[in-house]
């Protein structure tokens, strides 16, 4: 338990004795924390925290301090002729009787004779009550505190004291620090009087909403730029479906070549074939596959048009190059075009 107590005078220091009760109403812990923390930077006060530990009475003990200890009550309840255990138990309750009996026996205030509890003294000094009162008043009793603790009559209480002093920049009226510059400040000219609160530069800035480019496409762009800067022109490659003719035959990949296997090429169910192919060029391609030409020995096999008409998903962009070369060859003049 922590209790917060404000001292009336900002300059005096607390003592071990119970401090002067504050005239102001008690303030909540958190609020006090805030006040202390916010005034610290402004150096209006130099707080030091002092932690003191004190023993306080439990509620049970408070009852004894006020009304006397149980053992005294017990003895007082025993008539001169004595009382039976049972009767006393009934009056006080089992638990209380037990505790009181033990304490009274310890002080030698009672004795037992054949099941009867008898007084041994006429008057009892309620030392317990006195002790408790002394502790309540703030007195330190190191040697007896153990007994009290055993009987669960006291608990340790930690009290944190803040000693507040006037700091070098003490002012009666608190100045508010500005956090931001606003339009009003500028308009009114107040900005001249502004004092800023310190920024925490180690804090992160506000996360902003941003968009992203795909990293692979950035790489693609870099590669495209290399070619563009050398004077290359981009080919139109936005055609994924291609015929075997342009993808393989026009590039002289023989028709039984493994790359044309269904393992390595995606052939199509729909659209399955390309029937529109440049016939004259196709004838030349066929010739070279079968028997050579243009300086080549050829492959020496029977070239089939059916195979060339099969559609597939383009396996290499060179298929586009093949189309481009054919197109360029149709030009009147073959020359670099700048």
């Amino acid at each position: 338990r922590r209790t917060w107590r404000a001292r009336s005078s900002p300059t005096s220091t607390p003592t071990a004795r119970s401090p002067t009760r504050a005239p102001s109403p008690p303030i909540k812990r958190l609020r006090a924390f805030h006040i202390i923390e916010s005034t610290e930077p402004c150096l209006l006060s130099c707080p030091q925290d002092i932690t003191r530990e004190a023993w306080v009475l439990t509620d049970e003990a408070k009852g004894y301090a006020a009304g006397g200890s149980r053992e005294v009550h017990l003895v007082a309840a025993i008539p001169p002729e004595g009382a039976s255990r049972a009767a006393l138990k009934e009056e006080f309750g089992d638990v209380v009787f037990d505790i009181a009996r033990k304490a009274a026996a310890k002080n030698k205030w009672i004795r037992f004779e054949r099941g009867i509890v008898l007084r041994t003294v006429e008057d009892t000094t309620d030392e317990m009550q006195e002790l408790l009162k002394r502790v309540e008043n703030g007195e330190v009793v190191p040697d007896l505190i153990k007994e009290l603790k055993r009987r669960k009559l006291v608990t340790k209480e930690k009290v944190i004291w803040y000693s507040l002093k006037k700091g070098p920049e003490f002012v009666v009226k608190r100045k508010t620090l500005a956090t931001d510059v606003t339009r009003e400040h500028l308009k009114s000219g107040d900005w001249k009087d502004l004092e800023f609160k310190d920024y925490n530069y180690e804090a992160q800035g506000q996360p902003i909403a941003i968009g992203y480019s795909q990293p692979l496409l950035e790489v693609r762009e870099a590669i495209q730029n290399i070619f563009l800067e050398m004077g290359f022109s981009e080919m139109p490659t936005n055609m994924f479906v291609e015929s075997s003719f342009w993808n393989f035959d026009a590039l002289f990949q023989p028709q039984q070549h493994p790359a044309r296997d269904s393992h390595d090429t995606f052939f199509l169910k729909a659209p399955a074939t390309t029937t529109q192919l440049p016939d004259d060029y196709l004838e030349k391609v066929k010739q070279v596959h079968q028997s050579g030409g243009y300086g080549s020995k050829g492959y020496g096999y029977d070239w089939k048009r059916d195979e060339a008409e099969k559609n597939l998903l383009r396996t290499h962009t060179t298929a586009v190059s093949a189309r481009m070369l054919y197109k360029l060859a149709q030009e009147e003049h073959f020359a670099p075009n700048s």
Partner: protein
Amino acid sequence: CLSKPPLSAFTSSGSPAVLARLPGSRVPPPANNTAPQPPLAMPTVSVGRDRLFAALGRVYTQDEFEALCFDFGIELDDVTTEKAIIRKEKHLEEDVEADGDDEVIYKIEVAANRYDLLCLEGLARSLRIFTGSEATPIFKIASIPRGSMLQMHVRPQTSQIRPYVVCAVLRGVTFAEVRYNSFIDLQDKLHQNICRKRTLVAIGTHDLDTLQGPFSYEALPPQEINFIPLKQEQTFRADALMDFYRSDMKLKKFLHIIENSPVYPVIYDSNRTVLSLPPIINGAHSAITLKTRNVFIECTATDLTKANIVLNTMVAMFSEYCENKFEVEPVEVVSHDGSTAIYPDLSCYKMEVSLSDIVGPIGISLDETQVISLLNKMQLQADLCSSNREPCISVSVPPTRSDVLHARDLAEDVAIAYGYNNVPKSKPKSMTIGGRQPLNRFSDKIRAEVARAGYMEVLTFVLTSHEENFDMLNRTDDGNKAVIIANPRTSEFEVVRSSLMSCLLKTLKHNIDHPRPIKIFEVGDVVSLDTSRDVGASNNRRLAALYCNSNSGFEEIMGLVDRIVKIVRAPHINFGQTYYVPSSEPEFFTKRQCKIVMSDGKQVGYLGIVHAEVLRKFGIPDPCTFVEIDIEALL
């Protein structure tokens, strides 16, 4: 709106535009090895390191050997041991005892069209010639009078199933175990590569001394063929043999080549001993052993050119073990129409090429003598040409180099022998101005704009499942829309996407835990059937955006559309005052969707709050608004 692009320069080497570079020389196609390989993998030859160095005549450090491979144009892919291979195959732990020895094995990747590099003999020989320690061998046909040649008679029925056969004999060979294994391995490699898993060509090798010529190549109904196949002890009838091999891991994949034919190909000797049932299995009778001295090789085929290449490769590789080194005994093949041919045809292919046609395309200047010595390093016998017009080289291409088809192949080999890294870099001699495709330039502008609006760009797959493309979007397939793959790998690749909607929704689902609002977009192509194009389909460039939050964000998406409309509004793009027209499509909530139309009424896009059913199917718990626009229409 695809405009014709401006032409770009070709390096002016003076030569006219030639047809595209013949493929296959150094950028090889994927090979069909039995072990699964990644796409575009080159065939790998496994050779014992020490055997290889012995054959090369010197020992190399691994670095030295790698450098030699690199210069020659092959690659040392892996170094392992037989033990390690078996361990890996059986998934054994490191320290567990495994079979196989510790002989270090080099796995070397070679170009897929270099059949002469598929065995240690060929590899070592090529490297010896390349480093200059040996000259290119000249293969000879043994001079045997025509009448004494072994004969192979071809019956007419073979044309129904497997018309061609070529043969050769290797005399006086000595097969130590390693050579024998090499011999078998080469047949395997050839079967996988050029033979296209025995469909085009099948090789059969036999102990000639167990047989009696002349031989006959026939095609008979399976019930009439009986023999003891290799590794078996009892006789099988051919049709029963097919069933027998159905459970054989290695042979079952070849059965389909002949099993449904009314006649099966079969080779007999004059005693009606079956040599082989191509392309399935040889007969046990003529099986080659380590004691075999004379080898009979037959290659049956559906492609004669390839049969010759295969036969030539076999004899070229192994005739070095014959009694008369590099000499091959010929066989006469008598066709059913009476015509005859003598195999193997080991003739060289003669080419005459001008010096400039060889060094010009490379970009180096060498004289004829230098070029000749470089060609000789690559097993291409070169000489000065007798032509007097301009410097000219005559080249005799040996049967081992069936990959040389054109003068460009000679140029390539000269470049390799010269060393690619030694070729000087140069700049094009003429200047051109580059340019972008208008649609792509426009797409990039749109992308930048949408990113500025705070959207994250995504890049999604072009292929998708049929379900995602239709059902999951509450759309129906009328069969006239989507391009369909005939051989999809998985259901994920069944169709080409018709819209970007499923792509963005799927992306959203996989990133559903991102902080809100989630704003993603993509500019990409979708494909539709299109009868106006030669191929029957066309691409369409689209912009699509998706907004997801605890509220639908419909106004947000509208704001984005307003922004797009504003920036493309130009004299020729006509949007009226209002360009939203209510719609009623099943993929969106009713009364929460509209079309985007131009002033002539043409629809260029659509947007709406995604229907709860669609969200449920995609597994998205929060409301979303989606828009898709055809940006080609805005170009």
